[in-house]
């Protein structure tokens, strides 16, 4: 571990999911010669590949059969017919979905670029599902008022990720696979590179670059029942926070209505998009009560809350009453096999139920992180609520907060966000680098600090196991900072997180070796969970309203007068986060806030 090599590239991209791959691909395509991508797991293992349902874009190839109502069958749009969907409609749905906390310029950019991005995916070789005349097919998704989810059966993320990775390879991007980013080097609000650990050898390197992008994904692993991969530990978010970069809107965490009971593994929203029902213990379609119009296809925050209410009021299913039934039986074998084959296999493998014949037990599961590293629409990270830049530092995808999702993300909008803003970041970075950006000098030896951190972690003997602390954190976050929140619970969560942080400092790592030490990585990840969880809780505690995914039972109403603003959190030494607020970008003429009803 005494290896002290410094590695230099023009651009270093941390994260090889859709955001990172697009940024790398585009930067290379735009003529930046030396682009390197760092990923703690092999790029194709990134969580983007797990996305199932689709990517939103108003291509308008499919429409509901006339006269069958909003839940009727779909048909391909005949040439020359009146469009059933539009970019404006997509913009409006997204704003409404965000509970007006989304920044509207960014949303407009995303919805406009959506069409280009999907066509570009097509040009790059993505295998989409098709209409009869060979166009890309769309399906319905929650909160979208038209069929707008472009899909490849139910492994959309998988094909998008493979496509983007292949194209990055094609353009000669260099990949550091299984390299773990430990630190971000920022001095005087100028980013100078990162420090990373080569997992294979355990060596820690300083990596210098003119520009750095974080596309490190979400932080859903802070919760007990989650649809997220093991890798989604919000590393980038925690690292940036530690380096003095603020975090925005961290209290907004989306719970997906259909995680497999006990496992949390996702049954795509496409299940409902294709026409699936949700039933309570009395076999009632309870969504009638909560969203009579959209029913099961209401946005996720609403459906999850409805489920939780049914559960809390004793109409849950399974032994502990914590489940809800997902009913796909009426879709028929053929449709399930053609449109939801992966989902069916998951149900068979994990809960032993074949959705063709039986009800599938599900429950809400932590799913998506609306908050993250704040950026402008070109993915340039901002240093504070005033919008001043952190020069040379970019962020995109789930790790970032532009913010297009506001208080609640619509399904299929996040693959879109990762792609659109990854792509924009690629252009912005190329411009920045080609515009004469210089490699910045380093003050000290940043790698030495990380070596010290690792040595110290490995040196602890005795103590509790890291995993036990991580489990306690997830439990308290789920119970006290979950779907329904209130002051008492959030205070409890705050106490717990702070206590766990302290306990972590003496917790022990079992594996002391340097080669491929995943035990050490798990400990570092646990530390990251503890780091950003305090921001989630602090934001939630302070925000005394209910908006989107943030639902306070003690403040059940949205409060535009006081809370139509983004939470911006800076690290404040050992005292926890210091909160400030940033205005939401709203076009008061076009999209003024309304009541959100489905």
């Amino acid at each position, binding site marked *: 571990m005494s290896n002290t090599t410094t590695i230099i590239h023009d651009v270093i991209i941390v994260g090889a999911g859709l955001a990172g791959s697009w940024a790398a691909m585009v930067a290379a395509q735009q003529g930046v010669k030396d682009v390197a991508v760092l990923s703690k*797991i*092999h790029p*194709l*293992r*990134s*969580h983007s*590949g*797990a996305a199932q349902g689709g990517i939103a874009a108003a*291509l308008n190839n499919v429409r509901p059969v006339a006269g069958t109502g909003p839940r009727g069958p779909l048909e391909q749009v005949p040439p020359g017919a009146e469009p059933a969907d539009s970019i404006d409609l997509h913009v409006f749905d997204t704003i409404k979905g965000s509970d007006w906390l989304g920044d509207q310029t960014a949303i407009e950019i995303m919805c406009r670029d959506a069409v*280009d991005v*999907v*066509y*570009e995916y*097509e*040009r*790059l*070789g993505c*295998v*989409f*599902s*098709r209409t*009869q*005349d*060979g*166009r*890309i097919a769309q399906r319905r998704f929650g909160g979208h008022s038209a069929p707008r989810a472009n899909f*490849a*059966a139910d*492994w959309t993320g*998988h*094909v998008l990720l*493979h*496509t983007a990775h*292949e*194209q990055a*390879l*094609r353009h000669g991007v260099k990949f550091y696979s299984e390299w773990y980013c430990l630190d971000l080097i920022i001095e005087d609000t100028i980013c100078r590179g990162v420090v990373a650990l080569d997992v*294979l050898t355990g060596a820690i390197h300083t990596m210098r670059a003119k520009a750095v992008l974080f596309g490190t994904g979400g932080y859903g692993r802070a919760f007990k029942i989650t649809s997220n*991969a*093991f*890798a989604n530990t919000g590393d980038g978010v925690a690292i940036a926070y530690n380096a003095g970069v603020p975090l925005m809107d961290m209290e907004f965490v989306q719970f997906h209505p259909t995680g497999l009971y006990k496992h949390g*593994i996702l049954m795509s929203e496409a299940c409902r998009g294709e026409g699936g029902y949700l039933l309570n213990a009395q076999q009632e379609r309870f969504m009638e009560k909560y969203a009579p119009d959209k029913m099961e296809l209401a946005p996720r925050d609403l459906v999850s809350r409805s489920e939780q209410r049914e559960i809390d009021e004793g109409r849950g299913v399974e032994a502990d009453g914590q489940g809800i039934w997902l009913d796909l039986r009426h879709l028929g074998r053929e449709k399930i096999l053609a449109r939801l084959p*992966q989902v069916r*296999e*998951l149900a068979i*493998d*994990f*809960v032993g139920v074949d959705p063709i014949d039986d009800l599938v037990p599900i429950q809400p599961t932590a799913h998506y992180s609306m908050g993250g590293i704040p950026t402008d629409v070109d993915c340039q990270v901002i240093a504070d609520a005033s919008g001043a830049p952190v020069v040379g530092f970019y962020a995109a995808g789930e790790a970032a907060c532009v913010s297009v999702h506001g208080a609640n993300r619509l399904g299929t909008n996040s693959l879109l966000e990762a792609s659109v803003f990854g792509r924009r970041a690629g252009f912005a970075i190329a411009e920045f680098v080609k515009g004469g950006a210089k490699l910045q000098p380093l003050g000290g030896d940043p790698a030495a600090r990380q070596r010290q951190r690792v040595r110290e972690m490995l040196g602890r003997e005795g103590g509790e*196991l890291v*995993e036990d602390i991580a489990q306690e954190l997830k439990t308290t976050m789920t119970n006290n900072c979950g779907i329904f929140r209130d002051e008492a619970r959030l205070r409890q969560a705050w106490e717990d997180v702070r206590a766990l942080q302290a306990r972590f400092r003496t917790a022990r*790592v*079992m*594996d*002391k*070796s*340097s*080669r*491929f030490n*995943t*035990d050490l990585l798990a400990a570092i990840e646990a530390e990251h969970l503890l780091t950003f969880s305090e921001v989630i809780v602090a934001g939630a505690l302070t925000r005394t309203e209910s908006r989107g995914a943030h639902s306070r039972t003690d403040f059940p109403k949205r409060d535009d007068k006081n809370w139509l603003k983004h939470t911006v959190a800076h690290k404040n030494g050992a005292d926890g986060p210091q909160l400030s607020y940033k205005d939401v970008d709203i076009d008061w003429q076009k999209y003024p806030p309304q009541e959100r009803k489905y």
Partner: protein
Amino acid sequence: MSDNGKHTNVIVRIQRFNPDNDQKPRMQDFQIELKPGTTILDALQEIKTHQDGSVTYRKSCRHAICGSCAMNVNGKNELVCKTPLRERLDKNGVCTVRPLPYLPIIKDLVVDRTAFWEQYLRVKPWLAPPPTVQTDREYRVSQEEVAAIRNAETCIMCGACYSACQVIALNKKYIGPHALLKAFLRVLDPRDAIPGERLADLDGSDGVYRCHTIFNCIDACPKGLNPTEAIETLRKLAQRRLKVEEERLERQKTITEPIA
């Protein structure tokens, strides 16, 4: 196993090896409690977090889509995240987990996949787009054309097939089932502009003809894919390479027009 809701203890036997300290691999037994719904990955996770943190393996998505966790369980390659432990216990209540065979071991259950990814890169996994550039519409691809390549598209590059193939055991110069499946995907995609070039490349002695139709790749694939059939198809197409090229040119003339 677990009658009256009582949980039984079972043994997970793991092959251990850290090249820095060990001469050769050894087997180590871990006892864990079998709960309903425990997958093999859950079992490994339980062992790692509470018994021996140095037990090392790859994992991420835990639902059979990222391809990290392919291992050899009781002699068969599979994804441990989607396999219930209960189904892999022998009559003594033992489940044996080894790394993927025929690949160099990095540590315990983690193998070195360098050759695997080199071959992936070698077949140019990306689409070579058609000459007709259009930015405001999609190319037209029929549902049948999509169906023909659908299976290849769902390959998660887990390597279960690769490390079950005896030809790979003998010779890492062989492209291997995973990369040939990828090549198949590109050759059959009506949008790909260079099927001829690809077929010419696959035609060499490290390509489709190095496969001895052993079928292990099919048996091992956790996604139910069929690399052998892809390889057989490529063999046939390779023999009529010029024809394929011509047909593709012809097809691409109408690639922007509606499918009848």
